[in-house]
């Protein structure tokens, strides 16, 4: 954990680029399943996100000519909503794999989109590159938990499809562009990632009592207990503190 903290604290330097739907391909597919919804907010003013110097690679500089890049550690919306928070059910003991969609992790304008990619264990994901400069995609799991790898992604590289076996928060980096830093958050069971306004909805939750866990980089983790009624919706709001 210490190490993840270091990576988060020092290497993360990412600009918010696009705000697409971050709750990925989840649909209610069984009768009686409910959902957990809520908002993640930041206590206090949004921390200043420093700009990123991309002068190492003129291509990256050009991509950000009109849209300066800055760190993406804290992406805070107008109402104080915090994006890129992963919400999941702590101690999930349900189905081995609830998520079957194949999310995409894009290397675009020398940044990672999304900045945080939540995944179920063994859920496949695709790493693509939209850039005309070479990247290497280098996730750094704890080798005792997951198996890391390091692949080149030059312009036009075919997608890399991978999955992670065990739950773990895995930093990912590009060694060529040291500011490129993102996260694979591998959890068991249903999950959601908060959007720009801090909203999230975890779908496909069977009725029962759960501990909802909110993870935000670098090592923030809060929990709340909720009970989901059959077909119902429970609420869990979180307030994070920027360190």
């Amino acid at each position, binding site marked *: 954990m*210490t*190490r993840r903290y*270091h*990576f988060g*604290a*020092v*290497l993360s330097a990412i600009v918010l680029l696009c705000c697409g739907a971050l709750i990925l391909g989840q649909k209610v597919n069984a009768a009686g399943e409910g959902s957990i919804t809520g908002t993640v907010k930041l206590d206090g003013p949004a921390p200043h996100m420093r700009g990123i*110097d991309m*002068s*190492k*690679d*003129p291509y990256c500089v050009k991509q950000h000519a009109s849209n300066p890049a800055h760190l993406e550690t804290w992406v805070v919306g107008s109402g104080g909503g915090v994006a890129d928070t992963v919400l999941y059910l702590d101690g999930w003991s349900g189905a081995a794999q609830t998520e079957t969609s194949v999310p995409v992790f894009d290397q675009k304008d020398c940044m990672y989109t999304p900045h945080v990619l939540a995944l179920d264990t063994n859920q496949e994901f695709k790493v693509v590159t939209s850039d005309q*400069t*070479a990247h*290497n*995609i*280098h996730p*750094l799991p*704890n*080798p*005792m938990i997951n*198996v*890391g*790898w*390091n*692949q*080149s*992604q*030059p*312009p036009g*590289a*075919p997608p*890399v499809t991978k999955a992670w076996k065990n739950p773990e928060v895995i930093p990912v980096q590009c*060694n*060529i*562009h*040291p*500011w490129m830093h993102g996260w694979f958050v591998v959890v068991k069971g249903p999950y959601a990632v908060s959007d720009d306004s801090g909203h999230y909805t975890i779908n496909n939750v069977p009725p029962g009592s759960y501990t909802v866990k909110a993870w935000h980089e670098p090592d923030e983790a809060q929990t709340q207990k909720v009970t989901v009624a059959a077909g119902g919706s429970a609420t869990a709001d979180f307030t994070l503190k920027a360190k």
Partner: protein
Amino acid sequence: MRTGLRKWSLLLGAAAFFALPLTSWAQLSTADIASRDNMEAHIGNLTGHVNARSTYDYKRYCVSCHGDLGDGNGEVAQWLDPPMWPKPRDFQMGVFKCRSTLTGSLPTDEDLFDTIARGLDRSAMPQWSQFTKQQRADLVAYVKHFSPRFVTEKPGTPITIPPEPEVTPERIKAGREVFARVQCWKCHGVQGMANGPSASTLTDDLGRPIAPFNFTEGSRPKCGDTDRDIYKIFMTGLDGTPMPSFADNIKPDEAWDLVFYLRTFMQGASKAKELAKTMDLKPVNPNP
């Protein structure tokens, strides 16, 4: 521009500073390690074991760097300062640079067997070629028994390397194109002198500074200096380091072209180097 770079190097210096005290991921207990003392290694018709001999040899030759628990925390690890002196390998992680297998997979027993004899240039790892083959095979088993990965996973399948074609000027030129396309120069520099724009900020998996290979210094590549070794290095990547695998992006035939082009940077006689003298080979343009 310069200020920005400096700022980055400061940041990364800080990263290195914070990451340094952490020299391994996890710490396995002696009992945990001992539970794998039935580990074997198979190299050709040799079978290596964790036995009195490999235990003795490990303690005599390896322990001062790699430590009693194989975690790379031997007594002298503290004096090895990356990038000039890379830290000793943590065998518990089961992550190895020199493999014939794809990135993310375990090396074969032969890979480890070869690494012990070959050593790792530009590090404190000598060439242990004086051992008998049986000693080396036993040491491979001994190294493997530190990591649970060798129980839970099978080694990867070695990549298929087609026979080396004849070097031609066309192939060298094609290799230059590959060098430009996959942008080796980002780290290694357009003339292979390890001075690419990203060279100065590279870190290994534990955040410690690491230098890219300088092809021009007359030094051997990390995982061997035959053409096949070089082919393997960039196709499989050096796990634990910033060097990625290019297997998805370089076709086998192109890979030989790239080997030939890299040879033109390197000291030592090679046919590619001879041919290059007759060609007007200009360094690739980093910003076309």
